[in-house]
């Protein structure tokens, strides 16, 4: 029976002789992940079972990144629960601040998730790792607890949707715009329960960091996972990772030519311009060029979607030797310590600060209305993050517009939503 890449990876991780969409399986996990919001619940459940150890101390990853560095006493206690648990069970991959980064930027960067892996994370954006050619999906805390005990997760084999992108990307258009375009086309539940497979000549030429941005937001279309077949770009990315204790560069799967898809969509990317998702759903997408009358109070550049070095380079290119609009707040958050150092060494941090912005330590912070940039009543933000729900970044009457880093940087200069061509 022909299989999609998703089905092949699932088959490799289960005892079942074959897999087909709709089938329930128990699957072995290569990595399970939790953070300071989701892991405390999981740890409570884990301890209740009386388990003496985790199934594999090298395969559990704990990252306090959401409310860390601890924003208040309660958050400090949540982070402490992770630290204590990691110590008690000798969990190697616990990342205290100083080593910590936004989890979905950190794990690929460290080579902790590999092509062909089956990964679950108690965080909805765990779908990010599909960019590496892994099956990777968000679950809840109880799932994480069960996986820490047994090394397994129950899954329903998803149907797959195929998204074929062709044509050359226009200037200032990247992975973020491709995924916003896709979500706007199919809606926030357009891929409910399904694996979203991205392919075509545009994807074959798309840099890894753009692929990560795309797969990151599969969940915003209701997807169970996003995935891109590993190729030369994947191999180059994996070989460049300097981490001696990693498990190699993974296993490269691809879909059979006659594999079955529930739906096939084709997009001519030459027609796509820099996009913005307006409040309060990621599917409410309009071209940045049509939103020039929307004034903005705060710009956030960072997150698991767009906080990587390539994102900061784009933003710095636009902000170099310029000042942000007086009265507007610009917050730049490199996603990991490595990105932070690169941004310092390349002079990007200086550009942001001289433009009038702040340059923060890695954290999920404002993306979920946690800290480091909460919005007041009625304020509006442009953010390179992934969700623009009501009150997502602060007061329920505040608004979030989602964009790529180029639009965000241009907006910071203009004080209103701007196309990058207006400022450079």
């Amino acid at each position: 029976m022909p299989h999609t890449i998703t089905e092949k990876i699932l088959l490799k991780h289960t005892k079942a002789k074959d897999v087909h969409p709709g089938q329930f399986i128990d699957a072995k996990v290569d990595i399970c992940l939790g953070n300071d919001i989701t892991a405390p619940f999981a740890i409570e459940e884990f301890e209740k079972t009386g388990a003496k150890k985790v199934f594999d101390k090298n395969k559990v990853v704990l990252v306090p990144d959401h409310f860390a560095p601890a924003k208040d006493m309660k958050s400090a206690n949540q982070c402490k629960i992770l630290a204590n648990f990691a110590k008690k069970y000798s969990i190697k991959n616990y990342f205290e601040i100083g080593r910590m980064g936004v989890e979905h930027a950190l794990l690929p960067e460290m080579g902790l998730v590999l092509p062909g892996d089956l990964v679950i994370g108690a965080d909805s954006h765990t779908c990010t790792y599909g960019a590496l050619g892994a099956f990777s999906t968000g679950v809840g805390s109880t799932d994480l607890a069960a996986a820490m005990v047994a090394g397994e997760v129950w899954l329903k084999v998803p149907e797959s949707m195929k998204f074929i992108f062709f044509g050359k990307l226009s200037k200032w258009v990247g992975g973020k715009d491709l995924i916003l375009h896709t979500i706007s086309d199919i809606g926030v539940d357009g891929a409910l329960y399904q694996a979203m497979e991205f392919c075509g000549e545009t994807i074959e030429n798309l840099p890894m960091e753009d692929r990560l941005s795309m797969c990151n937001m599969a969940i915003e279309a209701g997807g169970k996972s996003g995935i891109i077949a590993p190729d030369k770009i994947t191999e180059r990315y994996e070989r460049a990772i300097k981490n001696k204790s990693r498990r190699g560069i993974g296993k490269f799967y691809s879909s059979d030519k006659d594999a079955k898809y529930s739906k096939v969509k084709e997009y001519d990317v030459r027609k796509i311009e820099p996009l913005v998702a307006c409040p309060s759903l990621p599917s409410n997408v309009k071209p940045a060029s049509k939103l020039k009358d929307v004034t903005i109070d705060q710009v956030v550049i960072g997150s698991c979607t767009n906080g990587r070095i390539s994102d900061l380079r784009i933003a710095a290119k636009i902000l170099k030797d310029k000042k942000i609009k007086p009265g507007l707040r610009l917050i730049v958050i490199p996603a990991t310590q490595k990105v932070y150092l690169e941004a310092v060494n390349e002079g990007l941090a200086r550009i942001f600060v001289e433009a009038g912005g702040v340059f923060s330590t890695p954290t999920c912070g404002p993306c979920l209305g946690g800290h480091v940039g909460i919005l007041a009543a009625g304020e509006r933000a442009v953010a390179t993050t992934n969700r623009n729900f009501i009150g997502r970044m602060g007061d329920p009457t505040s608004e979030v517009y989602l964009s790529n880093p180029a639009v965000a940087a241009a907006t910071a200069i203009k004080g209103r939503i701007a196309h990058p061509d207006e400022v450079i």
Partner: protein
Amino acid sequence: MKNKMRIHKFGDDINTDDIIAAKYLNTTDRAELASHCMEHIDKAFAKAVSAGDIIVAGRNFGCGSSREHAPVAIKAAGVSYVIAATFARIFARNSINIGLPIVESKEASDRIRKGDSVKVDTKTGLVRNLTRKESYRFEKYPPFMQKIVKAGGLMNSIAKKKR
């Protein structure tokens, strides 16, 4: 089964930030989570809801973040069933894993109005609307999920397997 309850209606795409805002995620205290349930979209809900009530919502209920705090807050608020046209994936599996009963039925979601008297019968897979004298069929959990539910949630089901 006595399943007479009050109905709380919600629309499409109710996300987990709506159900429990991120600022309350620095705790695992069930009662506290319940006291802020639906705060961003319906300030009165947490006070109005009482044990046995039913939430009836539209499409894609529970979309967004994976926070288990969302079904936990709903369960701790005393809600006995969530009925929706469709559920977002992670919310659905979290509900099953923690034992919050969910019912997927577009018809029930469309037809049930605030004030209706409704009974859910999981054995027959029927939602009965006593006010409108209608009933709506729903797909029962597949056997794989029923095992988890019967065991009293995922952790019990895992413990059973290990024995």
